[in-house]
């Protein structure tokens, strides 16, 4: 497959691995966080950790949009979907996410709710046009990558004069989450978690560019390398991070030059700014309330805002107290440290956020990596 195989070449991977092994200082260790679930998935799926020396370790960050969606928002979507006049549309991986009491959109659908999976916001618009008697609600989630298509759909809906199309916005912002992790006491004050650098987002950065990361590199003195989602991209980014650490530098570097420009995609940014504005605060599953970390629909487009059209009271729903997702998302713990991992919490019956999507740290470790654990991913009864 042209333009794909080149980035998955095993021979180049081995030579990069050899270079990292030589360049990594054996008298210290390196702990890098990949923010994005896309990177987490690539690392697990291609077995990248097997290619890294023992002293270079990856910490899986919170960049999985399905994972960080709080249970209260899933509950709200399920309540919406159960209204007889509503057709709720969403991306496929959100359908299985359990809300309170284990009820997911998939289960609500089995119970008669009109919930449908779409592949794009344009498909959602088509359904709204074809079925004018239905109240069509698009359950929108995602980081900066999926926000522009939602903005466009809202603008198109207005241009077409659609009266039965609304969006339940749960779009969140990457820099806010990175900042939240770096500001957390475990990382900043207590030093319990050492993060030596970040692999910066791939697709998100095509939209927002590399400049938003400058602050982290300067203020927290952490190197950031923006990287693509292919396994060789990840390997090269790790090598670049090792070099920065060795040289005592902390700048933002761009490995993903084939897609990311420093200023990002200005058209996309403009569309998003037209339609959306910042929320003062938003709850992230696993991280709690994060100030200025999410987007709501501007008043000018209120007619397309499901939160205005319908009465959707937000009822926070706590996670299982034994769930360690919050600590895992900040790099304080690893999936295998959680008491629930592999016992009551598996991809079939996820309890915590990191297990719900294949991009989550726990799901990736369960699906691809648990054979490395001493007990095969299942905790022995103690």
């Amino acid at each position: 497959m042209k333009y794909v195989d080149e980035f998955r070449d095993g021979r180049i991977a081995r030579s990069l691995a050899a270079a990292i092994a030589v360049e990594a200082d054996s008298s210290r260790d390196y702990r890098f966080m990949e923010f994005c679930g896309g990177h987490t998935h690539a690392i697990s799926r291609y077995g990248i950790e097997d290619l890294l020396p023992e002293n270079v370790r990856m910490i899986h960050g919170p960049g999985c949009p399905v994972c960080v969606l709080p249970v209260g928002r899933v509950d709200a979507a399920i309540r919406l979907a159960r209204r007889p006049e509503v057709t709720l549309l969403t991306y496929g991986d959100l359908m299985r996410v359990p809300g309170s009491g284990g009820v997911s959109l998939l289960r609500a659908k089995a119970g008669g709710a009109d919930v449908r999976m779409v592949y794009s916001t344009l498909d959602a618009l088509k359904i709204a046009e074809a079925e004018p008697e239905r109240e069509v609600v698009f359950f929108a989630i995602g980081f900066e990558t999926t926000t522009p298509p939602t903005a466009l759909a809202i603008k198109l809906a207005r241009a077409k004069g659609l009266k039965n199309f609304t969006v339940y916005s749960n779009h969140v912002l990457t820099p806010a989450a990175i900042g939240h992790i770096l500001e957390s006491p475990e990382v900043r004050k207590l030093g319990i978690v050492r993060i030596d650098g970040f692999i910066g987002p791939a697709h998100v950065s095509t939209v927002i560019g590399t400049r938003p990361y400058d602050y982290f590199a300067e203020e927290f003195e952490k190197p950031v390398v923006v990287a693509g989602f292919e396994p060789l991209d990840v390997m090269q980014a790790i090598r670049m991070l090792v070099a920065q650490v060795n040289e005592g530098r902390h700048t933002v570097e761009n490995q993903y030059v084939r897609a990311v420009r420093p200023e990002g995609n200005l058209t996309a940014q403009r569309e998003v700014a037209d339609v959306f504005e910042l929320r003062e605060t938003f709850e992230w599953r696993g991280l709690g309330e994060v100030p200025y970390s999410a987007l709501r629909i501007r008043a000018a487009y209120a007619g397309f805002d499901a939160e205005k059209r319908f009465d959707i009271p937000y009822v926070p729903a706590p996670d299982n107290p034994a769930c360690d997702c919050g600590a895992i998302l900040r790099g304080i713990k690893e999936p295998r440290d959680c008491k629930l991992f592999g016992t009551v919490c598996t991809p079939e019956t996820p309890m915590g956020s990191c297990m719900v999507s294949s991009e989550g740290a726990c799901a990736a470790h369960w699906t691809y990596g648990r054979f490395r654990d001493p007990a095969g991913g299942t905790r022995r009864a103690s």
Partner: protein
Amino acid sequence: MKAYHRKLDLKAGRVELSHGSGGRAMAKLVDELFHAAFANDELLKGNDQACFPVAAGRMVMSTDGYVVTPLFFPGGNIGDLAVNGTVNDVAMAGATPLWLSAAFVIEEGLPLADLKVIVDTMAAAAAKAGVAIVTGDTKVVERGKADGVFITTTGVGVLPDGLALSADRARPGDVVLISGTIGDHGIAVMSKRENLAFETAIQSDTMALAGLVAAMVAAGGDAIRVMRDPTRGGLAATLNELATSSGVGIVVEEEAIPVRAEVAAACELLGLDPLYVANEGKLVAIVAPEVADAVLAAMTADPAGAAAAIIGRVIEEDHHFVQMTTAFGGGRMVDWLSGDQLPRIC
């Protein structure tokens, strides 16, 4: 005076509730469509059962329901699946499939022309696989209570002496083979789904594997531990089933697993893993190491196994995990599918 006989309108007609109600309309449908296509002595007797002589030895039986959507897809239709799928389930025991039953649940309003294509396809597939459809049933349900047509087939075959293929017989050191490229069927069906139709030249691989199985049995005999066709859940599900049943682990080499470039590209686009995509004309075999080369040679000599390959081996492993050495050079698990990648694929 001979009553005027109006034939089924196979061009513009549609299936009506009366076609399943046991009266004259049903007799006409059975006679002009099913009997005409499946013609064999046993079926044409018009009994509610088929009667056939049994040789001494063991018989094999399998049943399967087919609910694929859409009914017609590149490379075949539900009729191909209904015959080949059950023929293959019987053949995987190492058996020779001989007889099939076919039960149809038809939605009111299905064009008779579509039903005729499906039934003719079944007749052709049965002839090619060397089986006869000897008994059947027809039901019609109201519009909206089914999706076009659902077909259930049951197959019976005979098993040569000395064979005991079974999912619990894989042993450490055994060799794992696949008969060809994976993922073709699932991607072909998906390419025609309403909500994501995309242009592709990929055809379903639906085909009967009875001939391939016979050639493999001739080459490997009972040193073939087990065969299974990796349908829903794909290669990954089948390998996990076999590892669990046998209480062993399996290690496969990603580079050795044949995948068409078009299938790999479609999977890339849709975020799917070809390991989990359904096949309808492939088999996985686990064989003793001493016959691996002979079985592989027999497979590649058969058109149904031309792209066959050795993809891995059986290991001792406490957790019965399936692992893969990635083409990239790392290791990972190949876990069971969680959730449903593609519903109603067969």
